[in-house]
């Protein structure tokens, strides 16, 4: 990877990210413009019409579109996404408070997905017709057919309600890290609470990735270069886990990038079922309360997360795939 190429690639990626963020900001702004009356939320019904108009003027609500949008963007860039009607606190602060909960849930689920899909996918590709393969593939079809929220419900019903082994909602005890991060991964109680939600969150992605890895690996194992690697006298281990696996993982990483958005959507479902105090749960509450600034803040933060993680995936993709030239994601 040469430096100028990398710079050009990053530039194109950033441009695309900026475009996506621009669209998202437009969506956010139009929501702010059309949803609810910020005035009423602030001052209530008791203020006279003339006073309202004066206030509107003062708040700039009668300004032309572009000026209002410009103001919205300027504030947003400075981290001011408005004040939550319900919490009476800056929306950004409310959202970021919930970020660790969602992040840790996604982190554990991602570890589950990667940790299981690669070995299982590789195993089922190598031992195509073994009994274990048939069992794994059978489970994977079922796994794909059960929506995330149902996996979550069944997990709660079986392990919390019927068996009483697992807690059914919330994060449990958290431990405050020095930089203000409330971590549930550092207490036993917190770990116990994250088991079911993270399994539920990974329940569709895991079989999806097992199937993809298996399909890719089976194809790669048929290629000439794998045959050639064996003809060179390499150990089976090296043929499988270096020659074949490396080629298998390239399209898998690419699919990982495509599935980030879906994973975020699944966090909303999982958090709702387990009342997990994360961003997705907060978002649904905000929707029900018509807490416009919070809704906007969530959309913008999720947009940012989406853009950043996609860029990261693309970087990894170009890093592991030497044949790709930096064409700015036109893959």
């Amino acid at each position: 990877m040469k430096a100028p190429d990398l710079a050009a690639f990053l530039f194109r990626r950033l441009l695309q990210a900026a475009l996506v963020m621009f669209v998202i900001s437009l969506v956010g702004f139009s929501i702010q413009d059309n949803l609810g009356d910020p005035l009423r939320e602030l001052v209530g019904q008791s203020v006279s019409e003339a006073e309202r108009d004066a206030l509107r003027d003062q708040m700039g609500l009668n300004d032309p579109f572009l000026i209002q949008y410009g103001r919205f963007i300027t504030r947003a860039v400075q981290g001011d996404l408005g004040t939550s009607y319900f919490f009476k606190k800056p929306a950004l602060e409310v959202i970021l408070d919930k970020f660790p909960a969602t992040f840790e849930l996604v982190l554990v689920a991602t570890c589950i997905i990667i940790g299981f899909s690669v070995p299982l996918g590789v195993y089922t590709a190598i031992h195509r017709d073994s009994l274990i393969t048939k069992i794994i593939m059978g489970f994977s079809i079922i796994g794909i057919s059960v929506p995330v929220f149902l996996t979550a419900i069944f997990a709660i019903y079986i392990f919390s309600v019927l068996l009483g082994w697992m807690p059914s909602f919330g994060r449990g005890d958290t431990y405050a890290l020095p930089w203000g991060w409330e971590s549930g991964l550092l207490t036993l109680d917190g770990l116990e609470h994250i088991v079911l939600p993270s399994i539920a969150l990974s329940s569709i992605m895991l079989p999806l990735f097992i199937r993809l890895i298996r399909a890719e690996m089976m194809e790669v194992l048929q290629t000439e270069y794998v045959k050639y690697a064996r003809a060179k006298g390499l150990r089976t281990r090296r043929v499988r886990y270096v020659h074949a696996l490396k080629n298998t993982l390239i399209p898998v990483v690419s699919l990982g990038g495509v599935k980030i958005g879906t994973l975020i959507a699944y966090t909303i479902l999982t958090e709702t079922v387990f009342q997990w105090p994360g961003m997705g749960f907060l978002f649904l509450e905000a929707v029900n309360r018509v807490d416009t600034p919070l809704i906007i803040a969530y959309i913008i933060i999720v947009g940012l997360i989406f853009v950043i993680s996609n860029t990261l995936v693309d970087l990894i993709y170009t890093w592991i795939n030497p044949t790709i030239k930096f064409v700015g994601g036109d893959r």
Partner: protein
Amino acid sequence: MSTISRILQSDLFYRFSRDKVAMGSALVVMLFVVVAALSPVLAPQNPYDLTQLDILDSELPPRWQDGGDERFLLGTDHQGRDMLSTIMYGTGISLMIGVFAVLLQAFIGISIGLVSGYIGGRVDAFFMRLADIQLSISTLMLAIVALAVFQAAFGSELYQDLSIIMLIMVIGIAEWPQYARTVRASVLAERSKEYVDAARVIGLPKRHIMFRHVLPNTLSPVLVISTVQIAEAIITEASLSFLGLGMPVTQPSLGSLIRSGFEFIFSGTWWITILPSLVLIVLIFSLNLLGDWLRDALNPRLYKKT
């Protein structure tokens, strides 16, 4: 008649009739469709008709459990609605939204795919880039945000009346890339074939070639993805309804039925949630098996590309 005999004699039907999994799943899907379509006749109760409900009947367990009631095979929900009838009606709503959303997806996707594949160049690059971004944002995420905004904008009462249409629109519009990509790929494949060159050589207009020659040849992959797309649409609808962004409890789909029962699950009233969940799973599972089989049978090469 000739169409039917042609179908019965076709290769596809022969393989189908020999495959137990395919036959079984098709049968289950058929059963669901028929029962759902005939639910006004078959269902013991009309769950939308409030006069038939009695609050005293609420939360009765299924008949085989202690405290079960003769009249309610699968028990009742917290409003006293017969679960069996509600599930039958709910399946109908889920299926309807799934099918209509997929019809809309197919319409938009096939149009864009045809244009993109046939015109190529910048138009193609634009649409495919858009499809990439749209796919990575994911239908569910897009639908959640869109419906959340609508709901907040319209207020939940008006939203309830519009929810069927909103769901069909949102799921239909958001999933176009699947169809567009599939159709585009087969247009590109067909375009390089000789019969298209031949049609061009004899001077047929572009539009004619596209609709009369290329389009029919793209239909088999479209059929292949449609079954799975319906399953996906039903999952999406159920997820949205579970979040409270879809069908209202007064006119429940399977998803909103599951949602309405979920709060009672801890008090031991499991059937309101678990029974429609099982129905939903069986429905989606059968559709997926059928889709898998179709994909293998019609076009083995397509298998990997999802």
